[in-house]
């Protein structure tokens, strides 16, 4: 690799598709200092996320939980605030020339017709707009004007015109108070120089009209799951109330039909869309919440809840009384008078059935968007027959064109945690193609005010382009502010959020000589970064800024009573001023960060993570308990695309051991571990007892898992009962090894799924076993076509493209027999071998199957992780796998900063998924370490040692374990790195020894007084 100084490659990256995947990739690359162009054809970034009312399995929006330490609350906002990210909405990639490191991307930017900087979201334009169209965001269930505001969280948040619906009457142009609208705006083109490209254009929902038998688009009470999602969403088309479109009445009997446009040859969608079972479970629960007396029926073929924690979610939903019918609906018809929809299906007991419902929801599958297919053709990317981006098993985010990476649903339908992991892996791939990002400049030191300085408060009122002044009397507000105690100056501006606004604000602070600022304007959730910048330029630290929310919290919500709104604005400013008197000019502290990373585990996950990090320039210490690298890769006979994974393991091990930045310790374990994120100290104990000290900034846990063992079905008692892994190793050797194995003369082979899995012992689904069984069955049928293979299953969970294997197995004559708990199959000895007794759940009849061999699908069990978890100070989940920070948004992070996890240590995964997680965890660690100087947060708490009585109440109150007792000094300390700044301990402290910065007790009481007393 060339030296950074002569590296001619671009250090910028282009991301096409700014949904969850694109935003996550962009944030990670931006954190490392790379300029990021975030292109999306929509008017704002955020993709499909805005559609979702809540997401499984936490049933919360949950985006804010992804970043508890940031001032921002969702990835869209984070992207908009990050100085390295340039969101390019309404843009398309037209052409891409060049090679990795030197791409030239031609971009067309379509007109918005509204100037984003000038638009104040006042809504006057939409009020006068005479043109309407169906609201696409609400699934066409509500009307929308041709000029419309994007969803509340969209970035940029400004009106936009749909020219297809616009009649060019010009009324909005006249109505706009800031002259933001230009109906004659033209598209523009530009060329970007980038070093790598990530494609994450997402998915499109299947068009339910193509399944004519369900009558969507004709029968008014048949809706799609997307329309239902919007109905259930409080800001949605019906404000969170479930109603029947035909008469607006609440539906009592609701049916969900699964696999609409999935697993369906008739519409050319043979694959499984992976997420619909879970989203239906979520929607069914939402329906019950909104209407507790609703009767919910789900029509489904299999229940596919294969993700981490999904099986438990599913169990919970089932217990809420939701009916599941294993049946395929053949027809829907709506009664013209009652509006009831009758569904025809074949019942579980056989025979045609008809049942009436008030509302029918079609769980539509996901497909590759048309625009993404065209893009792939334009830039020469391979796609599979369904238009999804083609990748390799051992290079799961790389496209056929070097330097172009694929992530998110564009590779195949997937849920949020898998998307988040894949986005990070794609970012890792791209980062290796880019010139190094410029070294981050150390932050300019901000001067602070001496604590004893007399408070001189400046009140600065931002009228937000006059929108505040429409309700609040700004002159009266300014006069009142000037009369408040300690207020030295009052200023005013129209637009503090612009670059000029910031400059003029900081000039005003300097000129007026104030040492505290009350900023009266928009919500403190907005523009905080910009305002902090203005203060810093004037030499004031951020905690000396107080916000008075007179826009969202006043002017915009009290339009009908201007006099009282003005009074309220005055109160709000007085409260902020009272608090500003006590503002504590605390200085942010910094600590250096170590560059190195410790990777625990040398299997596929650990080796991949180590290589990725080393390629990104980080020194890596890899610790493996065994004496060879490769882990479970040695035990996998073959995979869907790779005949010999062992060879892959050896090739990877070779790369790892020969890499100059990787130190490998074999036969070694972790002996000690201490420190905080950015500065960990560890000792590696080698086989000979020698202890090697290691100093690292981050740690990645990749300790793997293993094929589970069981104590049932005569396993261990009878040599003819084996595991899927055994069969896979035999089959990998072809005819030759088959001839020498126990399966030599097999005529009847019975596979039992969920052996010791999805039951009370291991209540989770192991995700991979159905596909593993199907794959083995296919290979056996190929080698021995006359052998009969029976697969006894509860649900076949061959999600995504694995469904094609399931289809192939059935075509080859593999017999699938469904059983249901509590009737487990029984393996018993028979005259000439074994026999398996099972109750066929579809027929309801007992079946006796002869078997020469029985193969059990036992799934993946965690390694004994408890000791390591304790040593590292990270939690395990209830199944014994490591517990990630957040099941959706942070699947690869521990709550402990600087700690990451991947692979089977996280949960059961396929080979490509493990690689994705390992690359993703490596990228997350690299991004974390790129902040050479870690700035401590200013919202943390501190302890006054003199007042602390060492009672320990704060320790039990802290949800993060950030408060600890220091027995030497007899004081309750704060572990700053773990502290998330909630302030719960500060309230608990009986002596007020603990104070939360910027929320000090004194300051809050002053604010309460000012608020309660009023004018």
């Amino acid at each position, binding site marked *: 690799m060339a030296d950074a100084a002569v590296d001619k490659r671009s250090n910028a990256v282009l991301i096409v598709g700014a949904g969850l995947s694109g935003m996550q990739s962009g944030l990670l690359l931006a954190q490392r200092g790379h300029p990021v162009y975030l292109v999306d054809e929509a008017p704002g970034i955020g993709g499909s996320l805005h559609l979702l*009312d809540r997401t499984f399995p936490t*049933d*919360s*929006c*949950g985006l*804010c*939980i992804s970043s*508890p330490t940031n001032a921002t*609350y969702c990835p869209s906002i984070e992207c908009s605030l990050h100085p390295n990210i340039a969101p390019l909405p309404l843009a398309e990639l037209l052409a891409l020339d060049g090679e990795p490191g030197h791409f030239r991307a031609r971009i067309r930017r379509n007109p918005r017709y509204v100037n984003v900087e000038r638009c104040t*979201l006042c*809504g006057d334009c939409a009020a006068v707009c005479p043109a309407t169209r169906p609201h696409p965001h609400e699934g066409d269930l509500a009307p929308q004007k041709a000029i419309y505001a994007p969803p*509340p969280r969209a970035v940029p*948040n400004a009106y936009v015109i749909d020219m297809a619906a616009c009649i060019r009457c010009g009324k909005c142009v006249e109505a706009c108070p800031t002259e933001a609208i230009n109906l004659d705006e033209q598209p523009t083109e530009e060329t970007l120089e980038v070093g790598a490209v990530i494609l994450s254009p997402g998915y499109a929902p299947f068009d339910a009209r193509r399944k004519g038998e369900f009558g969507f688009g004709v029968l008014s009470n048949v809706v799609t799951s997307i329309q239902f999602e919007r109905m259930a*969403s*409080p*800001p949605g088309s019906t404000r969170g109330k479930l109603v029947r479109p035909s008469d607006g009445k609440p539906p009592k009997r609701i049916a969900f039909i699964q696999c609409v446009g999935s697993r369906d040859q008739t519409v050319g969608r043979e694959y499984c869309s992976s997420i619909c079972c879970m989203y239906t479970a979520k929607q069914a629960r939402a329906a019950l919440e909104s209407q507790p007396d609703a009767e919910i029926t789900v029509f489904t073929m299999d229940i596919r809840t294969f993700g981490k924690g999904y099986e438990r979610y599913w169990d919970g939903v089932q217990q809420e009384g939701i009916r599941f019918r294993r049946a395929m609906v053949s027809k829907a018809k709506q009664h013209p008078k009652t509006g009831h929809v009758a569904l025809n299906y074949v019942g579980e007991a056989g025979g045609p059935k008809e049942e009436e419902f008030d509302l029918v929801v079609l769980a539509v599958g996901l497909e590759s968007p048309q625009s993404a297919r065209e893009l792939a053709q334009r830039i020469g990317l391979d796609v599979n027959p369904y238009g999804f981006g083609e990748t390799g098993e051992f290079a799961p985010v790389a496209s056929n064109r070097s330097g172009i990476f694929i992530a998110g649903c564009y590779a195949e339908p997937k849920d949020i945690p898998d998307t988040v992991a894949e986005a990070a892996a794609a970012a890792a791939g791209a980062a290796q193609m880019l010139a190094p990002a410029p070294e981050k400049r150390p932050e300019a030191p901000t001067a602070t005010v001496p604590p004893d300085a007399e408070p001189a408060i400046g009140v600065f009122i931002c009228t937000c382009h006059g929108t505040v002044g429409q309700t609040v009397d700004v002159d009266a507000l300014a006069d009142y502010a000037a009369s408040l105690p300690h207020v030295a100056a009052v200023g005013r501006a129209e637009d503090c959020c612009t670059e000029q606004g910031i400059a003029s604000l900081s000039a005003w602070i300097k000129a007026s000589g104030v040492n505290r600022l009350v900023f009266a304007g928009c*919500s*403190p*959730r907005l523009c905080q970064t910009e305002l902090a910048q203005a203060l810093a330029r004037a030499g004031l630290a951020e905690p000396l800024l107080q916000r008075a*929310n007179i*826009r*969202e*919290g*006043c002017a*915009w*919500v*009290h*339009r*009908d*009573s201007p006099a*009282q*709104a003005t*009074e*309220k604005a005055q*109160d*709000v400013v007085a*409260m902020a001023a009272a608090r500003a008197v006590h503002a504590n000019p605390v200085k942010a502290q910094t600590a250096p960060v170590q560059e190195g990373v410790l990777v625990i585990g040398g299997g596929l996950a650990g080796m991949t993570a180590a290589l990725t990090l080393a390629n990104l320039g980080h020194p890596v210490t890899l610790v493996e308990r065994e004496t060879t690298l490769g882990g479970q890769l040695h035990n996998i006979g073959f995979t869907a695309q790779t005949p010999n994974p062992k060879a892959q393991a050896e090739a990877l091990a070779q790369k790892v051991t020969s890499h100059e930045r990787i130190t490998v310790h074999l036969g070694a374990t972790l002996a000690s571990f201490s420190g905080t994120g950015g500065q960990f100290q560890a000792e590696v104990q080698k086989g000979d007892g020698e202890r090697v000290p290691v100093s690292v900034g981050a740690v990645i846990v990749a300790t793997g898992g293993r094929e589970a063992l069981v104590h049932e079905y005569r396993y261990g008692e009878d040599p003819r009962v084996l595991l899927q892994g055994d069969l896979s190793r035999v089959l990998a050797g072809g005819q030759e090894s088959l001839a020498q194995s126990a399966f030599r003369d097999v005529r009847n082979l019975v596979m039992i799924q969920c052996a010791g899995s999805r039951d009370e012992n291991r209540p989770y689904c192991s995700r991979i076993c159905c596909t593993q069984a199907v794959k083995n069955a296919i290979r056996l049928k190929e080698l021995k076509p006359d052998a009969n293979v029976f697969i006894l299953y509860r649900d076949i969970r061959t999600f995504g493209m694995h469904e094609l294997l399931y289809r192939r197995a059935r075509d080859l004559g593999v017999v699938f027999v469904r059983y249901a708990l509590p009737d487990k199959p029984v393996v018993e000895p028979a005259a000439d071998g074994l026999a398996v007794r099972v109750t066929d759940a579809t027929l309801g009849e007992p079946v006796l199957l002869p078997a020469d061999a029985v193969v059990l699908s036992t799934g993946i069990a965690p390694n004994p992780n408890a000791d390591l978890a304790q040593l590292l100070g990270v939690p395990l989940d209830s199944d014994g796998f490591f517990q990630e920070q957040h099941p959706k948004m942070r699947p690869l992070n521990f709550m402990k900063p600087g700690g990451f996890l991947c692979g089977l240590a996280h949960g059961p995964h396929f080979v490509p998924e493990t690689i994705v997680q390992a690359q993703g965890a490596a990228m997350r660690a690299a991004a974390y370490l790129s902040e050479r100087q870690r700035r401590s947060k200013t*919202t943390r708490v501190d302890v006054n040692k003199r007042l602390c009585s060492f009672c320990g109440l704060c320790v039990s*109150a802290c*949800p*993060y374990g950030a408060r600890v007792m220091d027995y030497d000094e007899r004081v309750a300390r704060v572990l700053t790195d773990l502290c*998330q*700044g*909630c*302030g*719960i301990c*500060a*309230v608990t402290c009986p002596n007020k020894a603990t104070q*939360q910065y910027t*929320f000090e*007790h004194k300051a*809050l*009481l002053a*604010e*309460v*007084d000012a*608020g*309660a*007393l*009023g004018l």
Partner: protein
Amino acid sequence: MADTEFEPRIIAFLCNWCTYTGADLAGTSRIQYPPNIRVIRLMCSGALDPVYVSKALLEGADGVLIGGCHPGDCHYQTGNYKARRRVAILKSILKQLGFDEDRIWLRWISASEGRLFADTVTEMVAALKAKGPNPLKGAWDI
């Protein structure tokens, strides 16, 4: 103001992540509600010191609204449960002292429930108007 209808004054303590954001959404959606409320932003409803509530009432606020994330949704894992316990205890103490504890409202309002926030304020203002002014108002003016 005194010669017209009684206008209650409400002090609201809203958590940064859910209810404050929900109140902002009411603003950006222009959902109108009565201007009787004065909002104090906290990082978490669990960071609400009961002293703040008592202080507000002693200083003459007619009601106190506390807003947090829905149970299970707390940004800081369990802060809202702590708030729930503290408020319950505070209310029972105030009741013992002869104070009308129904002037204190604890509500779960998420970031997407701008409408619910506005409705809650409207409802609370009406309830406090029915109750009349806080009897402690002015009691400490000497």
